[in-house]
């Protein structure tokens, strides 16, 4: 197993639910899917509102950005110390 340390930045609803702007999580693997599962396990308050209870994957309406690159590909590889942004996918103003 490859433990990867990731930095997660929260915006909007995820930030309100968790009550923090930044998190550090330990993922059991180097992909976005594994990071999502680790985030969901560490912060169950996000489940059902932001993340899917089963997979930890963002619900429709939310998305990840790796650094500033948006992706909904679970296989996206993550390097250690990558910044992962969890945000609303709706950017209307």
């Amino acid at each position, binding site marked *: 197993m490859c433990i990867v340390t990731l930095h997660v930045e929260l915006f909007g*609803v995820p930030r309100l639910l968790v009550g923090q702007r930044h998190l550090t999580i330990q993922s059991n693997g180097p992909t976005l899917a594994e990071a999502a599962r680790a985030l969901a396990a560490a912060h169950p308050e996000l489940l059902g*509102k932001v993340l899917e209870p089963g997979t930890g994957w963002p619900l*429709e*309406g*939310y998305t990840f950005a790796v650094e500033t690159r*948006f992706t909904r590909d679970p296989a996206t590889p993550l390097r250690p110390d990558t910044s992962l942004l969890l945000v*609303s996918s*709706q950017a209307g*103003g």
Partner: protein
Amino acid sequence: MHGYHGRLLRIDLTARCAADEPIPPEVLRAYVGGVGLATYLLNESCPPGADPLGPANPLVFAASSFVGTGITTAAKLAVASRSPQTGMIGDSLSSSYLAISLKRTGHDALVLHGAADAPTLLVVDGGRVRFEPADELLGLDPDATAAAVRARVGADFRVAAIGLAGERGVRYASIVNDGRLAGRTGGGAVMGAKKLKAIAVRGDVPTSVAQPIALAAAARELAARSLGAATAKYREVGTAANVVFFDRLGILPTRNFATGTFEGAEAIGGETLLAERGADRHACAACTVGCEHHYRRRDGGAGATVRLEYETLFALGSLCGVDDPDVVLRAAARCDELGMDAISTGATIAWAMECRERGVVLGAGEEPPAFGDGAGLLRAVEAIGMREGIGRLLAEGTRRAAELVGGGSEAWAMHVKGLEMPGYDPRALPTLALGLAVAARGACHNRTTAYEVDLSDRLERDATPLARARAAAASEDRAALMDSLTVCKFLRGCFDDFEAETARLYELVTGLPTSAADLRAAGHRIVELKRLFNQRQGWTRADDTLPPRLRAEIPDLDAMIDAYYAVRGWNEDGTVGTPV
């Protein structure tokens, strides 16, 4: 045809008379309603070269077939005229009960011509029209005007009004109804030039629906979806949530677009405002989402809470380098009270701030504030609304002000076609950059929404100009369709297939067999008609561009514009050959 009344009221303010006219069914079908219908009526009513502030410029109000049917968010009204800011099409959309009242007069649209010779209140009571003096309303803010009008003519009237900015010809004055603004492109200035202080509307004609039971079920289902995760951001935090996120991405316009990050973003960000000042949440007429967040002022000023949206926050905050929430809240409230568009207000002040920084004298007898000077910002807002001191120049908007002042200040006048830039820095959003450059009404994030493409994984960062052109055109068509069905853009995440699902709703309302392809074609048709209107008013390819500061950092812009014209099937110079 269900859903529509098939009639309009054409009102001549000069002759003080009105005529009830049919709207051909094929027009309603082709242009859908809302912005599309308003564009059609403007195009047939506005002569080329009409002075935007003269009597020949019509002012059109148009509803859609969805208004009054119970479809969530659809109680919207489009306003169109030749814009005093851009000289091109000026269209705005506003959610309010006024839209429902207009529809209940038994008409789909009002078209106002001419100009009154004295301050006037226009009363539309069902099919009857009367003109009343409005001298005692002058100087009142829009909400006070509406209250005074309803006290005079009846509490069951709905009112659209202008504030001092509209009375005094601020080119970006708004039309206010039920506290909501038809904010951009200066409809309030057009109304003021017609000496029309307010319009009161009442009616009792319901909108007929082809399949009421099936529509009610579909509307309930959409309402339920509108409360899901796709709108959670708007409901739980509001559009103000964009501030901190955009800052993180480097797309938060700051100090007149000098940069895309602002050190004060957290202080004025939606999360902070909600935690420290959140007051309550409101919804537009007939809306289940309720995205309008109000925040408490702490300065003891009148009006305990203030409505604040992202665009207002960026324009009066980061764009002017101001990080004091109380200042931003006061400035936002004052823009509403004076009845003027907060984006253009903030952007024009930011232009003046940069003039000061660069030593360019405005010659108006008063030095503009420096970036970050909150008190100066508030003074400038006031001066613009009153058209006094430096406000006389700034009330003209960035393009005209820069032309008047010179000194190279055109280089930092941040507008497209005369309409000031919204709060998305297109240097990092290339599809949006194209969308803003070619948009008929100028720099507007609501008529393109191509930022959605850039803020997703739909296109690679090195996508070709052709790919971006296709995405921008599709985004523009969809926005035109939403504005014509008068469905809120905040609902877009609630649809799996927007065109197919709204075609079904349209069919249930009107009884007309309608496909997704039909609606996509309508969106394209409406975009094209806007461009045709602009062509008749003197548009050239040179108008499809971005401010020099931005253009210099988007090397593909011309190639994207060429590709966009090709995707549209237009001529190489951007003119429309054979309309669809």
